[in-house]
């Protein structure tokens, strides 16, 4: 069956299996303020380095294609989809994951607000939502505009700004209004 065969052959050629056999590279990441030395297959995404090698499974894999935001972490102060970059691209950089924000005993204000405002159901998108939310408030504070910012010289918090900026983080359970309420509470210092 040609369709199938062609697909598989193309995959095999592109992978260049001999070239990647056994090759590893050293990578140093500062994760949640701790220096971590890793030896990785260069194909390892930042997401899999966190989840499978450092066993920091708080960061979630929802799609592995940058479509859902569940893997959002903060790298060098900016949020990224950790599934969309390779770990080697971040050699020497600082990464903050959900585990670095707080613990069940000492919740970060955003984590606390998500509990208070019931900003989740199944919990699988939640670490990504929270990392994104923390970074969104920093973006607004830094004056970085978004698609819905009316005056580029005057970037300030609004529900519309947050809805726009959080739209890369899908919540299929759809606790959206509760997530907005949680972020608003933190922005207003009420959490």
């Amino acid at each position, binding site marked *: 069956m040609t369709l199938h065969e062609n697909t598989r*052959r193309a995959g095999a050629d592109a992978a260049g299996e001999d070239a990647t*056999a056994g090759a590893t590279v050293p990578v140093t990441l500062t994760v949640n303020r701790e220096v971590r030395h890793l030896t990785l297959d260069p194909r390892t995404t930042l997401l899999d380095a966190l989840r*499978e090698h450092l066993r920091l499974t708080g960061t979630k894999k*929802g799609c592995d294609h940058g*479509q859902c935001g569940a893997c959002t972490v903060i790298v060098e102060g900016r949020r990224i989809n950790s599934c969309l970059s390779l770990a080697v691209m971040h050699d020497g950089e600082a990464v903050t994951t959900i585990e670095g924000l707080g*613990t069940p005993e000492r919740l970060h204000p955003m984590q606390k607000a998500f509990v208070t405002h*019931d900003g989740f159901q199944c919990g699988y998108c*939640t670490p990504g939502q929270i990392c994104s939310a923390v970074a969104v408030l920093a973006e607004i504070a830094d004056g970085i505009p978004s698609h819905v910012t009316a005056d580029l010289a005057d970037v300030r918090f609004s529900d519309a700004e947050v809805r726009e900026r959080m739209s890369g983080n899908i919540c299929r*359970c759809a606790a*959206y209004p509760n997530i907005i309420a949680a972020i608003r509470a933190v922005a207003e210092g009420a959490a």
Partner: protein
Amino acid sequence: MRFDQPATTNPIDRGRVVGVPHDRIDGPAKVTGTAPYAYERHDAAPDAAYGWIVGSAIARGRITAIDTRAAEAAPGVLGVVTHENAGPLGKGRFNTAHLLGGPAIEHYDQALALVVAETLEQARDAAALVRIDCVAEEGRFDLAAGIDGAEVPGPFFGKDPDSAAGDFDAAFAAAPVKVDQTYTTPDHSHAMMEPHATTALWADGRLTLWTSNQMVAWTVGEVARTLNMPPENIRLVSPYVGGGFGAKLFLRADALMAALGARHVGRPVKVALARPQVPNNTVHRPATIQRVRIGADRNGVIDAIAHESWSGNLPGGNVEMAAMQTRLLYGGRNRLTRHRIAALDLPEGNSMRAPGEAVGMLALEVAMDELAEACGVDPVELRIRNDVAYDPEAGPDRPFSSRPFVDCLRRGAERFGWSRRNPTPGRVRDGRWLVGMGMAAAFRGNQMSRSAARVGVDGRGTVTVETDMTDIGTGTYTILAQTAAETLGVPLEAVRVHLGDSRFPVAAGSGGQWGANSAASGVYAACMTLREALAQKAGFNAGDAVFENGAIVAGNRSVPIADVAGREGVWVEDAIEFGDLDKTYAQGTFGAHFCEVGVDAYTGEIRVRRMVGAFAAGRILNPKSARNQIIGAMTMGVGAALMEELVVDTRHGYFVNHDLAEYHVPVHADIPDQDVLFIEELDDKSSPLKAKGVGELGICGAGAAVANAVHNACGVRIRAYPLTLDKVLRGLGAVT
């Protein structure tokens, strides 16, 4: 505990813990990322190897040859499982297609092989080296082309596919006002955030599966049937489920292939479906074609109502029961419902959140809007005029247990400001936006299912609840803790809840919105039995004893339950068993959706501006988590109305848009504030808790309210979901 008489006053009525909007007790674990999901069990299986599924690239045919040599020679590969070396496999009762294909191929992306390697990267790379030669056969992929040959399906969960009362044809022919329209809904994907995932471990012939599954006991049975092994040698653990919506009701390929892979390589193996595999490898909500006919008098009072629905599935698969709500929701002496099923060779169709009603209401409630327009009766008033206190097919001898439908309509309308709606479409303008208001009823049947729990108290007064019930985001951990705390008179903080382990008593599981009411009733039953055991041990008459503030109290004697439990503790197990009150009485959950939309007059873009819903679902066990269930379901209704559609390639037989970039679901920017109002209701015929389900009610009718608002905004009536802007523009052209 048997529940076959209406509930009387019981400890739950105290309402000190149950009914209070407590924060979720699993919240701190979820917001810190410390709640372990199925693929994250480094604690239990630290040496797990990685499996990658190779799916079929054709929809229907046969494998002629499999060559795994290149894959097996690739770096890090530990083994490859195919039908040739998997050993004899049975098939689960809930599976239509085999989870491991070959030599016959039953649908696109059916699992044909699993590559197991030391690392994920190695497994994924080697999967591309598995060469599978196959011969494709003609398939049937187009529902519209298949309905001529559609057949009468078998009963679905005991429900007959056809029903009738009176003489529909004659009454419809004679009706002064008629609606006769056909509506279509496309295939939908659950698109839960956590793809199906499992970690499998074999030890001494016994299998442990850490998996993401809604129905623990069902799935243990399915694993046993598929692997031809005794169920007692299978342990299934599913404490956290990253969304399900029906996608994880059954055994799926991740769990089977992980088990086969782990057996093959002699090591634990974990498998997660890649996101693009989810829609075609697993299950989806089948597309429907629905014809609704309503005959009414000039005041809108219905005399004849018929709802027929066609859907497709693999041979042997279930029909989508889209006409079920039409049997119960509105009055009318002459009635007819009919379901037909066409054989298709698309991936397997199965339950998705509110199977039947979710798409049935998309048709029925737009038909009601069309009837309101045809009669010149307000849509809210039309539904009030057609309210019925009993099962309209069975007659007054089968009354509803409770039906505050009119309250939902009136109070929802008032909260929304429905009286400000202009009934003439296309008359309200806000800049470039045409603004409209729409409404629809919400209805979902109430189902109950046997549910057991084990409850114990220790010498420190800590209460522990164990049941194989699952929490798929529904708030189960919290409501079960609330139920135990209320029944035993202890603070919520004194209760620990352990879920989702097949070593615990069998609960109702999460599906069909039966979970909360059934499982909490099971915990209540166990707690009442524990009260008896504790009272007896302390020398109280259980009937006289009051459990409060952590103590058993009768007269002027009070003994802390911690002291009664002592060092060894006291444990009991019990179950709730439901009698036939759901046969004597029709039981349902009700509501009313209200929605305001803007339609861009130039581009046809639709934006939801606000949503209000009023709902009645018996005692609301936790208003905070229940509201979350409702808004989430309303949002899924918005998705069904405006964007969700698995696009079928009718040549090659698969869903083309099989990831989250192409299968659109609502995101933050799509959803405004949502206002939810719960109507006070205690249904004493539903359970000892007088509660009902709430997890699916919110989706039923939500999309129809959006569609009706679009019509009110711009005058375009779209009967083919989703209401994408190309369809709006086509209509707008004719209107303006």
